[in-house]
């Protein structure tokens, strides 16, 4: 795009794909099929309200409330809904718990299935070829890239969620977090802990 007038409206020239995306939205708006404010609202929803902070609340609650943990592992959807979370791409949830002998990881080898209501939209690495290819065929090597080394006797279970079920990993609570409040615990539950590519650790700052 070398048109000076056009550049005036854009900080940089639009790429071909960007222009195509803008044109599709414009066609749909012109026809009255898609409202511009609905697009804005959906973008804002997943940027601000739906993200791993939701899943962290679920995990922290399961860490402090044994009855809740049981409900969560038995029938995840209503337990997650108790905290106000649910919706598209979380229609059929299963929560899988890590134990000293079992470590769970989630992947979608076919595309990018991911539990949106509790984790938001997936990061780029989750939906890119290396993770989709290798999570099932060399999980320990993938975990090593994330800085996770598991003992040899820990069984890894990789959940390939390419149909209707969406998984969330319930990580183990770090042993040195006794007495922490639920809010303090939420702060150490990262997105990757709930995908299964990280382990939560007690941090001084979180406990302060």
């Amino acid at each position, binding site marked *: 795009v070398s048109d000076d007038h*056009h550049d005036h409206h854009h900080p940089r020239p639009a790429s071909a794909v960007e222009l195509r*995306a803008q044109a599709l939205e414009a066609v749909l708006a012109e026809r009255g099929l898609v409202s511009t404010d*609905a697009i804005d609202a959906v973008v804002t929803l997943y940027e601000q309200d739906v993200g791993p902070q939701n899943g962290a609340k679920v995990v922290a609650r399961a860490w402090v409330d044994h009855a809740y943990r049981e409900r969560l592992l038995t029938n995840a959807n209503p337990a997650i809904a108790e905290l106000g979370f649910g*919706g598209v791409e979380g229609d059929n949830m299963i929560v899988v718990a890590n134990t000293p002998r079992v470590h769970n990881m989630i992947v979608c080898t*076919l595309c990018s299935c991911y539990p949106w209501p509790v984790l*938001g939209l997936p990061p780029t690495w989750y939906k890119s070829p290396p993770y989709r290819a290798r999570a*099932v065929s060399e999980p320990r090597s993938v975990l090593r890239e994330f800085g996770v080394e598991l003992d040899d006797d820990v069984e890894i279970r990789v959940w390939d969620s*390419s149909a209707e079920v969406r998984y969330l990993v319930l990580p183990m609570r770090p042993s040195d977090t006794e007495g922490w409040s639920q809010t303090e615990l939420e702060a150490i539950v990262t997105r990757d802990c709930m995908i299964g590519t990280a382990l939560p650790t007690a941090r001084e700052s979180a406990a302060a």
Partner: protein
Amino acid sequence: LRRAYLEYANRGVDGVHDMGGMDGFGQVVEPGGEIVSAERWESRVFAIHMVEELEDLGAGPGARAVREEMPAADYLAASYYERWLFSVERRLERSGAIAPGEVEQMMRRLHDGEPAPTHRDAAMTERMLAGLATVHPIGRPPDTDRFGPEPVYSVAFASCDLWGPSEEGVWTVALDLWESYLEAP
């Protein structure tokens, strides 16, 4: 079990998109990998896809199956949201919501400096926010036109049955498989 997995692999989902176990893609952890979408248009394509789905504007096979129609080289060359743009455009064409060539025509108008048309519809926004917060439990394989829900089974495989022996030892791969992907032994 290996035979069952191969049946699955050969049943419509055999293509470059079926990436489990493929070699040569490199590192998982790379700069830029943490972000959800790098550019504004990507978030808007995601939102257009959601409106198309919840407002039932598209037609034909599901979005993922449409992405799998891309030639392998194009699929690999495209960024994630380029594939989404491809699938939402095809589904809108197949329902007749947009005509072939219409997007290209609008690209020329925008390129010539015409302001992009906008449309406001508060009721649609409300429907979208309500729809996204609602559970939609009925599903079926995206690559079929069969009507109605279909059961999904989580089928666990020992890694050695899928990939042979590994220096990583043995782990479990649990695949979610639609009932119609399974064969009676």
